[in-house]
């Protein structure tokens, strides 16, 4: 992905980054809105009990206690798109595929309670905002890495793998915080 975004002249890379961010943010927001709209149909007490159960179960998975299924395809974005479509269209499609977060691989089990909380938190507007933020930050980080120092390609490509322990540690603490908040019974109006 970073290799694809980092292709071409500096101006072309920046434009590709914007297209990628727009696609990722839009599909993330659309998916979040759909989740929020669907979650609004679930009765409140049942929804909160369900969310607490999901947060506890996937929190245990984050700690390595249990192994549960993840909402993922397990595949990377299709490499063949790079040969089939024009460059800007490819980065748009890659952004669109990565924005919702479930198109490829889920990196951390804390993503599942996050999706549950988005669904049950505050309806389609907040759902769109939350997952739109996810899509935008995910694509923005990849675009920023792709347009950074082109001499250090190894450092750009391996950034995610080198920093994953930090994000997983933060995700464990945030997952626990989410569980506490749901158990106490506070949600977005």
């Amino acid at each position, binding site marked *: 992905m970073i290799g694809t975004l980092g292709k071409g002249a500096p101006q072309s890379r920046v434009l590709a980054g914007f297209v990628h961010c727009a696609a990722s943010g839009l599909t993330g927001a659309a998916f979040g809105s759909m989740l929020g709209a669907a979650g609004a149909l679930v009765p409140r007490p049942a929804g909160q009990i369900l969310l607490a159960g999901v947060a506890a179960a996937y929190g245990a998975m984050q700690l390595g206690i249990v192994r549960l299924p993840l909402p993922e395809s397990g595949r*990377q974005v299709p490499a063949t798109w790079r040969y089939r479509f024009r460059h800007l269209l490819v980065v748009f499609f890659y952004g669109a595929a990565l924005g919702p977060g479930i198109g*490829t691989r889920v990196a*951390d089990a804390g993503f599942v309670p996050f999706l549950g909380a988005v669904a049950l938190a505050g309806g389609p507007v907040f759902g769109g905002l939350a997952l739109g933020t*996810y899509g935008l930050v995910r694509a923005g980080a990849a675009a920023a890495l792709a347009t950074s120092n082109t001499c250090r390609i190894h450092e750009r490509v391996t*950034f995610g793998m080198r920093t994953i322990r930090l994000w997983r540690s*933060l995700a*464990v603490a945030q997952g*626990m*915080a989410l569980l*506490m908040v749901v158990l106490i019974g506070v949600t977005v109006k």
Partner: protein
Amino acid sequence: MTTVCAPRRGTFVPMRLVGLVGTGAATGLLIARLHDGFAALLLLIAVTQAFASLASP
């Protein structure tokens, strides 16, 4: 001598996890008292998960 320098995985990792879980629980208690704290927490989780996803393209 090498056994003295070996990493103490059995104690270090659980202590780190206990620290993270404890910090998370305390943060959750604090957030529950804040106005719009839940929304802010979800946005923080969104950012964290977005950066974590960079490890799996």
